């Protein structure tokens, strides 16, 4: 009951934000002259003559409010417009590309969080000892690595040097034939999951082979991020009085660190898992672009470079909603983990 009312309050608070979001992103696109936006419908110089007709047709020279009105009207009725990049409605496009990205995420996210937390707390437990310095240096390196460059290096080595061992793309031709054949049921379109549900080993292996490099690329930076955070908050809680108490009780160090320290150290980490979502969202754009892995990030990039406004708007909006939602969940989680926090305080 308390929780529900809290969630409702938060959701209500979201409405103005989301409204602002729409105005904002739509406002950006209006920086375009009608002519420019018209020529987005045009593919060759032949159609130069048609520009005025197109402006006329889509009312591109209407005043801002009118155009925004029409747009938001469509959006509210579930129509985000047409994505030229995907040759389908934006809304469908999102669901068309999301599974591929989830394929990445279901491997990357756990990898990031677990390794990050493990490394972080280990480093903290050995503060100022070689192990700590070692992990730290590695972390800072990882943290400073340009994702796109890391990707290129990996490709340079694995595409060029060990040719054909870890191929680009999402599936090899043969497996693609299997996946699109009638007797392979695509429950989720997330290949790893579908392969398991269909008990199809080859497809699973093939998928994994294509996933390894992108997952690594996607993870490194974020692992470093989480680890760094975990380390400092672990150090903080290791310095606390109750740790001394726990030791004075005679608890073995293992229990002191894993039970008393980590439980407390996790709190800030939980709160940043919201940022982790953002980090992933940013990460997939670069990773998928580099590896020509056609997920939602690749689509976003294509839309951006090919100026597919509807897609850009839709994607940004989609992300915003998702992001806000994730943060809400995180806040609730937070109140569950830390008894000191009452619902509502968590907002700050």
């Amino acid at each position, binding site marked *: 009951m308390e929780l529900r009312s809290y969630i409702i309050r938060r959701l209500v608070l979201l409405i103005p934000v989301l409204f602002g979001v729409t105005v904002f992103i739509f406002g950006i696109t209006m920086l375009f002259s009608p002519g420019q936006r018209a020529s987005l419908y045009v593919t060759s110089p032949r159609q130069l003559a048609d520009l005025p007709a197109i402006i006329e047709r889509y009312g591109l020279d209407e005043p801002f409010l009118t155009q925004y009105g029409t747009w938001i009207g469509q959006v509210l009725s579930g129509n985000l417009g047409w994505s030229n990049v995907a040759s389908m409605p934006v809304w469908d496009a999102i669901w068309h590309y999301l599974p591929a990205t989830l394929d990445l995420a279901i491997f990357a996210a756990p990898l990031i969080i677990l390794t990050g937390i493990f490394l972080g707390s280990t480093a903290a437990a050995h503060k100022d000892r070689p192990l700590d310095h070692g992990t730290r240096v590695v972390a800072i390196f990882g943290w400073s690595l340009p994702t796109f460059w890391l990707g290129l290096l990996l490709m340079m080595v694995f595409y060029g040097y060990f040719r054909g061992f870890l191929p680009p793309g999402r599936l090899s031709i043969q497996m693609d034939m299997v996946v699109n054949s009638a007797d392979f049921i695509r429950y989720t379109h997330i290949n790893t999951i579908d392969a398991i549900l269909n008990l199809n080993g080859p497809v699973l292996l093939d998928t994994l082979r294509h996933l390894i490099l992108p997952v690594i690329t996607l993870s490194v930076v974020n692992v470093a991020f989480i680890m760094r955070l975990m380390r400092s908050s672990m150090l903080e809680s290791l310095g606390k009085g109750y740790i001394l*108490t726990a030791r004075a009780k*005679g608890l073995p160090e293992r229990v002191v660190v894993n039970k*008393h320290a980590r*439980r*407390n150290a996790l709190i800030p980490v939980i709160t940043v898992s919201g940022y982790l979502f953002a980090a992933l969202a940013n990460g997939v754009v670069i990773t998928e672009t580099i590896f020509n892995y056609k997920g939602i990030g690749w689509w976003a990039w294509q839309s951006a470079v090919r100026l597919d406004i509807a897609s850009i708007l839709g994607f940004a909006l989609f992300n915003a909603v998702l992001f806000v939602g994730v943060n809400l969940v995180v806040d609730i989680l937070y109140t569950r983990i830390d*008894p000191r926090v009452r619902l509502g305080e968590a907002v700050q």
Partner: protein
Amino acid sequence: MEDLIRIRDLSVRFYTYEGVVHAIDDLDLDIKQGETLGIVGETGSGKSMTALAILRLVPYPGKIESGSIVFCDKDSGGELELLKLKEDRMRAIRGNKISMVFQEPGAALNPVFTIGDQISEVFLLHRRQELGRRAKQRVDSLLSDGNGLAAGLKRPFWLWQSRLYSKIAEGPHPLEPRFLSHLPLFRRLLWRLKDEAGLLTVDMLKDVEIPDAARVAAHYPHELSGGMKQRAVIAMALACSPKLLIADEPTTSLDVTIQAQMLELFRRIKADKGASVLFVTHNLGVASEVCDRLAVMYAGRLCEVASIEEIFLHPSHPYTKALLNAVPIPGKELQTIPGALADALNPPPGCRFHPRCPSAMPMCQQERAKLKEVSRDHMVACHLF
């Protein structure tokens, strides 16, 4: 009275970026059976460090450089050299034979566990066998007078449990239960241990005069008042009725009325548990209330040890005198100690107090004074004697 703890030329050093800090310097000190020994001194005089050193909990980058701490414990067979003990045996002593109460009750309790959890943790750790015994009794009683279908169904489990618990009750580290305690589902078989620990916890809380103990046990620390927290901490420390209770400024963070209650509590505990107490404080008044003997420390060294009366009637060391004068007494104007506490990084040579000492002599700057017995059980480290 024979000694419980015998500390001999104990030295603790801190290796910091700025340099080496001599937190404790060749300290000799005894704690007698059943007495309350107070350690007084300004902040940074090394009194808390001494306490931590006894538990071997000197925090990094500190290090116990040399010396010996002997723990004479009749029932666990004579004298133990704490500094030479294996870590696991030391753990068996911490919180069990020797336990500690910290200055900040707020900080001393883990915010994410309930009071009850944190106290029963001690029982589960040090009183496993006893818990096993109690649990077994309970199961057996169930077995004996349990009838009806439900009981019939549960019987095999009860039998198993009773076997497990008896195992726990006997051996210190019985294999089977330990193995099971790592298996997700079977772990459940051992839940009665927790229950028993919980019951003991509640008794413990009652013992430290916490009203409505059962409910408090279920509370999280942030839901309790400072005094309550401190009581809980004390309860935690007394859980295994230790031989030595170390109290590190237990009352400083509490307001005066609560302080009084706490001191009262301490006296009572000492009375009925017969434990020795090492009472670390900077407050002579408080010390005079609870302590039998008093040790005065300055800059990591011991200046003077004597019975509380001796100290107050015939203070010998100039620093002790200074301290006593610094205690506010109505009608008598207050004298502060000139100069600042010795710099821990590079302390003055010879007697560390000489820069501030009214009656300093040339030799004070060269050599440090040995601890001499000026009168019976009254030791002083000063060239004046």
